[in-house]
């Protein structure tokens, strides 16, 4: 990915490829994830994509998209590490005449909202507030996701822990009553004035054309990007805490949050990835084989890493009576890696699987965007190939050591 500073506070991140049938464009406004701002930032993309000055309603916008051969447009806020990103995305079929029209539509939605007397449209604001309220109160409809978010909330935010990573990325119901079309519009003006604009593009596009077009469409007066937090794996050691919640489920959910202390941009990170892969990465991982296949304890069990925070997470669906046994088996499997080590074969398997995972990123425009935006946020210069090379340098001893660094912080159990 090539980064081009087009002007004050306007950056283009560009991958030129003719692999795809489409051109994907993603405009990002990066904000720190803050308790006071999170609900506002969640609402804004929703309100903006309901209608703009020249396309005042959803059907109006969608008719314009249909004319562009069913272009996709969406606006949402995304939690990534301890940042909250307002993200506007448009995806166009690769035909020359569609690009300028698509970019113009994107600009209008982002920068020329429907405004009455210094406020957004009141109906849209209320309706988006209502939608958000419903989605917040409906969180527990998806049990797996609900359990994961609750575990992270307990691990990082509740009881005075106050790490923003534990905040729900879609905000809080109690904030909604205090927000209206006027103060939300004010907040958006404030965001526009204190946030630079990053535009990432993947597709078969002429670079000069693109930079010219973006610089005229998205020109900004100055660059006042609000300070963003530095991602870090640092943590405070605590006793294991256990949270139990009852929801009358047919199948219980159990989550485990481990601290590793591994910094997101460090050589250790690649070792952690290998260890995680061996422990719970997929169908040949220790957890899958020992807990699902040998003990028939659960339908799913897997582990993954929250890179920006150095957290390793394990989640599983098991009968509630088996919660203790699941924990025992998990810890036993971690101990086994730490004390008895892993075989060369296992490590090679993990490396092969990770290599595949990272190499396949280049087949998907959205994965490419995701990967490189993440790298930009972390200030990590490595591309996909360097990434893979570093993974493949990991030794068996390093995997063992890594398993010894897991500190179980939170066990969350939902039944």
């Amino acid at each position, binding site marked *: 990915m090539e980064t081009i500073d087009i002007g004050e506070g306007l950056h283009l991140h560009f991958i030129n490829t003719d*692999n*795809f*049938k*489409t051109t994907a464009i993603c405009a990002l406004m990066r904000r720190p994830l803050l308790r006071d701002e999170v609900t506002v930032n969640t609402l804004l993309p929703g309100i903006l994509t309901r209608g703009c000055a020249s396309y005042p*309603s*959803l*059907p109006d916008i*969608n*008719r314009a*998209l*249909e*004319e*562009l*051969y*069913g*272009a*996709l447009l969406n606006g949402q806020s995304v939690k990534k590490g301890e940042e909250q990103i307002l993200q506007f995305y448009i*995806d166009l*079929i690769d035909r020359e005449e569609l690009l300028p029209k698509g970019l113009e539509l994107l600009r209008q939605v982002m920068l020329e909202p429907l405004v009455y007397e210094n406020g957004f449209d009141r*109906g849209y604001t209320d*309706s988006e507030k*209502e*939608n958000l309220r*419903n*989605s917040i*109160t*409906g969180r*527990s*409809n*998806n*049990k797996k996701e609900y359990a994961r978010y609750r575990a992270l909330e307990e691990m990082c935010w509740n009881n005075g822990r106050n790490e923003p990573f534990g905040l729900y990325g879609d905000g809080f119901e109690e904030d909604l009553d205090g927000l209206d079309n006027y103060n939300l519009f004010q907040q958006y003006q404030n965001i526009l004035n204190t946030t630079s604009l990053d535009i990432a593009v993947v597709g078969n596009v002429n670079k000069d054309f693109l930079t010219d077009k973006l610089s005229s469409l998205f020109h900004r007066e100055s660059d006042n990007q609000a300070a963003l937090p530095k991602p870090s794996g640092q943590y405070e050691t605590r006793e294991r805490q256990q949270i139990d919640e009852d929801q*009358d*489920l*047919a*199948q219980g959910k159990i989550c485990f949050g481990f601290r590793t202390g591994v910094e997101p941009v460090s050589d250790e990170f690649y070792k952690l990835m290998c260890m995680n892969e061996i422990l719970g990465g*997929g*169908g*040949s991982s220790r957890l*899958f*084989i020992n807990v699902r296949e040998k003990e*028939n304890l*659960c*339908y*799913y069990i897997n582990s993954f890493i929250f890179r920006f925070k150095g957290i390793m997470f394990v989640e599983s*669906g*098991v*009968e509630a009576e088996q919660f203790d046994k699941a924990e025992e088996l998990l810890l036993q499997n971690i101990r086994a890696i730490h004390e008895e080590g892993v075989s060369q*074969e296992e490590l*090679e*398997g993990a490396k*092969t*699987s990770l*290599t*595949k995972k990272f*190499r*396949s990123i*280049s*087949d*998907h*425009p959205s994965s490419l965007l995701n990967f490189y935006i993440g790298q930009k946020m972390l200030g990590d210069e490595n591309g996909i190939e360097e990434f893979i090379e570093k993974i493949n340098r990991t030794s068996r001893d390093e995997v063992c050591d890594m398993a010894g660094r897991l500190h179980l912080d939170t066990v969350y159990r939902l039944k």
Partner: protein
Amino acid sequence: MEEVKYSERINEKLYIRKLPSGLTCYILPKKGYVEKQAVVAVNYGSIDTSFTVNGKDLRHPDGTAHFMEHKLFEDEEKNIYDCFSKQGAFINAFTNQTSTAYYFTCIDNFDINFRLLLEMVRKPYFTDENVAKEMDIIDQEIKMYKDNPYWRAYFNMLGRMYESSPVGREIAGTVESIQEINKEILYEAYDAFYRPSNMAVICIGDIEPEKIFEMSAELIPERETPELKRHYGSHGEGIEDREIRDKMSLSLPMYSLGYKDRILKGSIVDRITSSRVLLEAVFGDSTDLYGTLYNEGVIDPSFSYEYGGGPFYGVLVFSGVSKNPERFRDRVMEETARIRKEGLSSERFERILKKMEGRFIRHFNVIDQLVTAQVDLFSKETDLFELLESYLSVKAGDCERRVGELFQEENMVFSVVE
């Protein structure tokens, strides 16, 4: 039979060949892609529980096809997951109403993985012990679906539409029905359905078609094809009870509003494309109806619709979360009555076709979407390019006719989970 199809709109080629064994191969080479995917599709799904094979009538428990899918991963000597993962491949499988599919994705060692996949499907290994062991895992899987309100709303609806047909029952069966499955039943089903003439190989990626044809011919040898007749019971009947409610203590109700398609003439593919175009044209996000319902909060971003079907059934369904599902139902009935009277505007219809075309082209970015689509199309004896042709040839009149055929109140089921 052999064919190479080329579509200028998509700029892709599809190679189709039926081998002497009866196995059909579909190959779509994708230059520039690093991932490759191969699937073995079997024309055998959850609805195939009752059949006659070589004169013998058989009735299998619900969930047998899905159970088999789990058990084919069993091998006498080796751990199949390990074999694939050593080759850098990711293997998985799925079962739906009409198909079972086994697939892997990989970057390197395609040939080795392809061989492994075909051998796995060719060599069943069922024992009393490994069958008994699988019960617990599938039991957990069934329970997991029970906690999913979308799933419940949908299958409750389907159950009412197809009361005496396996279409109306869950793909994995029930906690009770799977208890009846044993190794004899699995072998019986395997022998009946896992025949080359009832199977396809589909490969997409940077692949050489000729090589796939050769390997497939070698690895899936001819097998005598039994005389197989599937029975689906009665399925065209009217619906007795058209409303169903279930309780899950949700914050907002979730609904599946469905119409049972009882006019099943013409090809399945044309039935599907005309219904989907009609759904976009009448309920899509560019309609005034959509705008109004969205503004009223009757629908929200969870709103979706789909038409799907098989040889003897068809279901059109709307689903989502709503504070007022009854209002949604009533508006659907009003709007379809209006369209029946006034028809569709041709300007609107042209725009929808543009959208469908763009969407179809976009699909060709994603290998696994294409593979999954082709698995389904194989069970309908057709392919991706015919599907596109069918979309492009939909006429406004077809859609208007379908509105009349589909939206009959007596064919509607309203399912709510609260």
